[in-house]
């Protein structure tokens, strides 16, 4: 079993729809949960991060973490064509030292105008 599982899609939805993107993970040491957005031929850029379980909202985006189920989600409300991109979940264990992020494969999202 891989450390982080993410459905690669593609996921195609009409403009204005609510989008749900998800990742599951196996390592209970992960404490920080991030979502990165990556446009074609660009580097990933941070959208949101959460620490431990709970929800966090930022505009049209909501990140949700359920540590008991080892399940994280990103919801996008009122989706726009400009949201079309690959969304990568990224996880990190707590503590200093070696702390590179562990990424999911990414979900390719297409918002149809």
């Amino acid at each position, binding site marked *: 079993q891989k450390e982080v599982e993410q459905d690669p899609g593609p996921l195609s939805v009409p403009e204005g729809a609510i989008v749900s993107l998800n990742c599951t993970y196996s390592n209970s040491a992960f404490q920080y949960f991030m979502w990165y957005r990556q446009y074609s031929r660009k*580097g*990933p850029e941070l959208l949101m991060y959460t620490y431990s379980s709970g929800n966090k909202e930022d505009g049209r985006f909501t990140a949700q973490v359920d540590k008991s189920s080892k399940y994280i989600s990103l919801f996008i409300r009122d989706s726009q064509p400009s949201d079309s991109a690959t969304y990568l979940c990224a996880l990190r264990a707590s503590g200093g030292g070696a702390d590179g*992020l562990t990424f999911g494969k990414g979900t390719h999202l297409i918002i149809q105008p």
Partner: protein
Amino acid sequence: EAGVAQSPRYKIIEKRQSVAFWCNPISGHATLYWYQQILGQGPKLLIQFQNNGVVDDSQLPKDRFSAERLKGVDSTLKIQPAKLEDSAVYLCASSLVTSGANVLTFGAGSRLTVL
């Protein structure tokens, strides 16, 4: 604030040739990472530097890959000799601190094609 700079953006080489990629992180960022992103996959950490010291290179194929960060600023990643499976985008990232969420800022990447 200037972003993470990488060059070259694209490189095509024959297998068994060598290639080098350069990264200039955000000014003041002590931590620098090199990631490999194969098409359809998420980025995989190759090496992490803290200033000019290596913190983690457990996933770096050391028989062919090498990296250095002289003077704790710019970094170079080298592949010699290249294999077909090295075709990927090589992403450089930097961060200011390594506690908490440790937000990474990525460059646009260097796309390598090995023929």
